[in-house]
């Protein structure tokens, strides 16, 4: 089962194909934000404040008369960047920690497991809030906070996978032919253990985007004027009765992104047959 055929199977299903198309659009929008947005994200036009959607401003304007469409397109950059970077860091550290703990066992495993379980016992948002309180608000500390919030999940998943694979005969066989522990771990165990971790990372990215929006809503994430969907919704609360589009469209953007990521993740799970593998393995 190679990875490209699994991807092909995902794209052939309706939900996989559609969610992949939506995600591709979002990524393209984020990458080419300065080119495709009709206005700059910080261009104020006070006479046009709280303007309803129109031919000039498709999604309307916010309380400073800034174009909402442009801000949402730029906000995609913030959301996707924070989501992928934080989950990327989290996954990488979780895989390294979990794999070494699962392979070595013993005291190292107990120490890692205890620390990880400690963070596992709090909701991610609480950990993120604590860390931001320490690090101070901003995009970087948001990314770090989210990365640490999700670390437990990846560490535990990798550790369990590696522990169950460690007893396989091919591990003994490879060591019996002179392989080092590093070779066994990185060349044989990790490739076999990694698939569910990748899918978990995919799904966690959706959650991380919601978490980033939540922190942004509280004013702990991106600082003005950097657009972030959560912060935009937060500023829209004051105008909810006179200009509901300010809170509505960023919310729609968040929902569409997260639903697309989750649907794609689900399609990936089915294509890789992970549910049955986790059940039997």
């Amino acid at each position: 089962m190679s990875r490209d055929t699994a991807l092909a199977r995902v794209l052939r299903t309706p939900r996989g194909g559609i969610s992949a198309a939506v995600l591709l659009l979002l990524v393209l929008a984020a990458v080419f934000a300065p080119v495709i947005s009709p206005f700059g994200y910080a261009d104020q036009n006070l006479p046009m404040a709280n303007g309803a959607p129109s031919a000039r401003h498709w999604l309307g304007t916010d309380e400073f008369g800034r174009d909402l469409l442009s801000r949402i397109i730029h906000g995609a950059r913030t959301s996707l960047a924070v989501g992928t970077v934080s989950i990327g860091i989290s996954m990488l550290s979780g895989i390294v920690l979990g794999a070494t703990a699962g392979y070595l066992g013993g005291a190292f495993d107990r120490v890692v497991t205890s620390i990880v379980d400690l963070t596992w016992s709090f909701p991610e948002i609480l950990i993120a809030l604590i860390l931001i309180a320490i690090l101070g608000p901003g995009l970087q500390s948001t990314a770090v906070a989210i990365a640490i919030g999700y670390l437990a999940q990846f560490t535990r998943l990798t550790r369990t996978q590696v522990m169950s694979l460690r007893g396989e005969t091919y591990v003994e066989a490879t060591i019996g032919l002179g392989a080092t522990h590093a070779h066994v771990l990185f060349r044989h165990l990790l490739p076999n253990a990694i698939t569910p971790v990748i899918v978990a990372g995919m799904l966690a990215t959706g959650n991380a985007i919601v978490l980033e929006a939540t922190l942004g809503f509280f004013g702990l994430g991106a600082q003005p004027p950097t657009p972030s969907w959560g912060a935009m919704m937060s500023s829209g609360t004051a105008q909810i009765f006179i200009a509901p589009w300010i809170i509505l469209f960023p919310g729609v953007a968040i929902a569409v992104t997260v639903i697309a990521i989750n649907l794609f993740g689900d399609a990936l799970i089915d294509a890789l047959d992970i549910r049955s593998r986790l059940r039997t393995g």
Partner: protein
Amino acid sequence: MALLEAEDLAVAIGRLSPLDGVSFRVGKGEVLGIVGESGSGKSLTALTVMGLLGLVGGRVTRGAIRFDGTDLVGLDEAAYRRLRGRRIALITQNPMTSLDPLQRVGAQIDQVARLHLGLGPAASRTRSIEILEQLRIPRAAIVHGQYPHQLSGGMKQRIVIAMALAADPDLIIADEPTTALDVTIQAQIIDLMGELVRARGVALVLITHDMGVVAQACDRVLVLYAGRVAESDRVDAIFAAPRHPYTRALIACIPREGMERGSLSGIPGLVPSVADYAAGCRFAPRCPLVEARCRTEAPVARAIGERVVACHVAEAADA
């Protein structure tokens, strides 16, 4: 001069001692069979020689293993790793699970030669295909690029053997290499291994529970029971005149042509668990010739010529 010689080897796992005073030797071009039921310490003997007791949390408490002049007991891990695969290769029990499911079988053979012989990708591939051809794998170049799940059990076992041969070792330890295979394939693989060993002058330790396999392929045999040596000798001598009641019982378990229906015998009872080895002879509860002192006093392994036997009854017959 024996290539591998184990002397009075004892192994402990925690407070248990699953291997207690095992001695054997095997020379180049020679096949030693180690026979016994499950729980007799066969696989543990393989792990001990490979220096892999750590995998099961065991340690050597007594005795010596000499390989080509060096004592393997207490050898440091780095030195051991240089021996493994290069000079001593292990063929593990189950070919179905002995290969990494995500890697092409060819790559798994190649990596042994690349690691130990320092060959490049092209040279190691050529070499692997040569070995596959020697193992009579048809269309070896195609098989080289296939994944384990595309191959049959017999094929997979040949791949595992090819991995063991890849760095031209002097000694191969095969732990029940054919147990998971069909009887016909089993006979083929055993013949093939015997041939390769003699052609290459490799020493082979063949671990099995099947006296039929021993008769087919081995020069010498070591019969283990509950972690101790029961009997050992040249294969023809053992089959001609087994002296330990356990050896006799094992030989009686081989199906023969022209047997009456239902006349194939088993050995009544079970191998005792390592946690409750009693004093005296460990085979006593199942022995048809058991005497009073068998239950209280452990028999000592005595050598008469090449024959080693640990049995009070056999000893009394000699006296």
